[in-house]
């Protein structure tokens, strides 16, 4: 799969500027390939570490500058988190993961936009010399987004195990409880013999749903960011000056929105993980009884 490419020349030979759908390898260390997306991610980690240390060293009771900004962000993000979880306690537990994902993705997205992509190495491939930039947006590599999505989904389930217990979390997918209740309820409600297998099957579908979550999270983020990079490259190839500027601003916005969407979805998955279906069901039944009465 190839994207709009540009070419330069060194002497007689053409250099290919290619926007590949995968991150290009920069350095091979035994079995481990260091790609340009991985380097960008390390850079993002270093930036976050530096900002964190600066923030930590400048923490004061009366906030100023960077602390003021981060307090504002923290407060806003926490209230947004509250809207999803409906509980401050739950928000405070999910929030560190969500905000970390947000900053990690945001900086990775934006690093793909900085013009440092001009630095790189020339490598001789099948089609001649091709230019490989040192930096590529970390999230423009499916490995990064897949890693984050897997972390989010596994994290949500682990969070569920710690919040409501392993048995209840297991019953969301392999609903043994509902099968066990057939014997108990069959005299009262004969329909249970039809409902219980359906419920059990729905549980199994949830397992597929978890894989779908990984796919949707990773491909959404990767697709948006990679498409942005291709768009910018295409615009730059068409008209080198001025024309790409609005698109850069658009990509800054897209980078922010995608980071926000990912962290909001992560919060939603964590909240679902920590919610107990039985409690909700009982609560609804009580409500119904109350309404009937």
């Amino acid at each position: 799969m190839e994207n709009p490419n540009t070419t330069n020349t060194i002497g007689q030979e053409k250099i290919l500027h290619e926007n590949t759908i995968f991150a290009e390898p920069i350095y091979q260390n035994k079995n481990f390939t260091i790609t340009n997306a991985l380097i960008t991610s390390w850079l993002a980690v270093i930036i976050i570490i530096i900002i964190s240390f600066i923030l930590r060293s400048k923490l004061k009771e009366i906030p100023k500058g960077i602390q003021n900004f981060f307090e504002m962000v923290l407060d806003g993000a926490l209230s947004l988190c509250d809207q999803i979880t409906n509980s401050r306690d739950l928000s405070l537990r999910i929030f560190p993961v969500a905000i970390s994902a947000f900053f990690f993705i945001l900086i990775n997205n934006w690093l793909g936009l900085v013009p440092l992509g001009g630095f790189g190495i020339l490598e001789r491939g099948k089609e001649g010399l091709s230019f490989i930039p040192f930096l590529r947006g970390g999230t423009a590599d499916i490995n990064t987004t897949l890693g984050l999505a897997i972390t989010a989904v596994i994290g949500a389930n682990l969070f569920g195990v710690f919040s409501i217990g392993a048995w209840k979390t297991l019953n969301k997918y392999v609903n043994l409880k509902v099968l066990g209740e057939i014997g108990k309820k069959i005299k009262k409600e004969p329909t249970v013999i039809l409902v219980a297998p359906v419920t059990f099957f729905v549980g199994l579908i949830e397992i597929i749903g978890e894989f779908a979550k990984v796919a949707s999270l990773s491909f959404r983020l990767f697709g948006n960011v990679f498409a942005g990079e291709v768009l910018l490259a295409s615009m730059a190839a068409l008209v080198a000056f001025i024309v790409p500027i609005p698109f850069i601003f658009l990509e800054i916005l897209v980078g922010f929105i995608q980071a926000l969407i990912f962290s909001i979805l992560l919060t939603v998955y964590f909240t679902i993980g920590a919610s107990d279906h039985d409690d909700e069901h009982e609560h609804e039944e009580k409500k119904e009884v109350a309404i009937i009465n």
Partner: protein
Amino acid sequence: MESIISTFHIDLKIIIAQVINFGIVLAVLYFYALKPLNKLMKERSEKIEKGIKDAKENAEVLNNTKNEYKDVITKAKNEAHVLFQDGKKEAETKKNQMIEEATKEVAMMIENGKKSLENEKAKMITETKGEIAALAIKMTEKIIGAKLDGTFDEKTVNEINKL
């Protein structure tokens, strides 16, 4: 699946590396930024809440003190007024009493004065009477004595002059 892996160059090692990267970000952000910042914000809001509560309490205490102060002042004023009135009454009574006593004393003194004057007068009269009687007796004696020895006229005149 194979085609997806080869197209996107999906590499488990890089995925793990990225998960580790995210883990580092999470740990650093949590321990160096979120936890202390959250703690600080919580402490600050607690302080502000306490400050507002204290200020309310202080305002209440101040209000109560003002009211108490007003009450005390009013009470003191009333007491002072009562004391002043009592003092005034007492002073008046004492004044009247003293005047009365003084009048009585003066009357008594006048009475005593009168009495002693009368006594003195009576005494003087009695004494004068006695002296006159004695004088008369002496005169009589003299007159009678001179007649007998014929020197009455001259001696009597001298005697009387000597008196």
